C-alpha cells in the first residue's frame, strides 16, 4: 500500500516577475505589481510529498532526516534570503513566477529523491497563504 509523506519548509526571498524583452507596460499587464522593477518579497512555504512503501522493519517510508537534508541543500540554503532573479539560476533567464519556482524545486529534488520504492509525488509551493501551485511532474510547458 502506497504511503504519502509530506515535509514542509519555509524560505523568504525577493523576486521580480518580468521579461527583459518586453516593455514596462507589457510586463505590468502580464504580472501586475510583481513586475515592479526593484523587486519585492514573499515568505514561501514548500510542501514536498514523497510516495513509497512502508518498510516493514523500520515502519518508515523514508528517513525524514534525509528528506530534510535534501530539501535544505537543494532549496532552502540556495534560495532563503536571496533575490531569486540575481542569485538563483535559472531565474536570471526565467521569470520566477510561483509556477516556475515550483518547477525548479521539482527539478532539483526529483533526481535526489527517486529510487526503487520511493518517488517524489508532489511539490506544493505557497507564494502567500492565498496563492499556491501543485506540481506532479506532468508536461507543463
Amino acid at each position, binding site marked *: 500500500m502506497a504511503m504519502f509523506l509530506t515535509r514542509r519548509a519555509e524560505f523568504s526571498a525577493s523576486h521580480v516577475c518580468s521579461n527583459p524583452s518586453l516593455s514596462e507596460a507589457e510586463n505590468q499587464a502580464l504580472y501586475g505589481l510583481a513586475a515592479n522593477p526593484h523587486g519585492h518579497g514573499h515568505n514561501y512555504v514548500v510542501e514536498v510529498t514523497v510516495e513509497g512503501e512502508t518498510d516493514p522493519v523500520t515502519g518508515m517510508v523514508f528517513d525524514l532526516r534525509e528528506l530534510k537534508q535534501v530539501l535544505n541543500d537543494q532549496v532552502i540554503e540556495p534560495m532563503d534570503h536571496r533575490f531569486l532573479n540575481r542569485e538563483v539560476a535559472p531565474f536570471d533567464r*526565467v521569470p520566477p*513566477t510561483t509556477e516556475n519556482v515550483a518547477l525548479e524545486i521539482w527539478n532539483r529534488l526529483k533526481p535526489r529523491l527517486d529510487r526503487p520504492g520511493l518517488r517524489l509525488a508532489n511539490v506544493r509551493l505557497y507564494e502567500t497563504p*492565498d496563492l499556491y*501551485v*501543485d506540481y506532479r511532474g506532468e508536461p*507543463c*510547458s
Partner: protein
Amino acid sequence: MLLTRRYRFSASHRLDVPALSPEENRRLFGKCNNPYGHGHDYVLDVTLEGRLDESGQIANRSTLDRFIGEGILARIDHRNLNTDVAELQGIVPTTENLAAAIRDALLENWPFRARLDRVRISETNRNIFELES
C-alpha cells in the same frame, strides 16, 4: 500544474425548504433553520489546471482576480444568499448548492486556457465542501 487562489466573502443564509413543514425543516437543518438567518466568513479556493503560458503562468493573476471579483464575489460578498443571489432563488443555499452555482457561473464565461479543476468552499473552519469541475 495546478494553481489555487484563495478568496474570502461574508454572507448570510437560512436553510429552509418551503415545501416541508416547520418541524421537518427544524429537524433537517437544526440551527441553520433559525428564522432570521445567520452568516459565515466563507473561504473560496479556485483551482485551475493547465500548462504554463509564455509568461510562465497558468493564468494571469489580475485577470483571474478580476474575473472572480466581478463575476462572483461582487454578487455574494456581504449579501443574503437567500434573497440577493439570482442563481440561488428557489434553491436551499447550502454550501453544496452554492459551490455548484459558483462552478456553473465560472464555467459559463470561463476566459482561461487552463481548465477549472475544482471549487472548494470553507463555510467555517470545520465545514469544507469541494466540487470537481
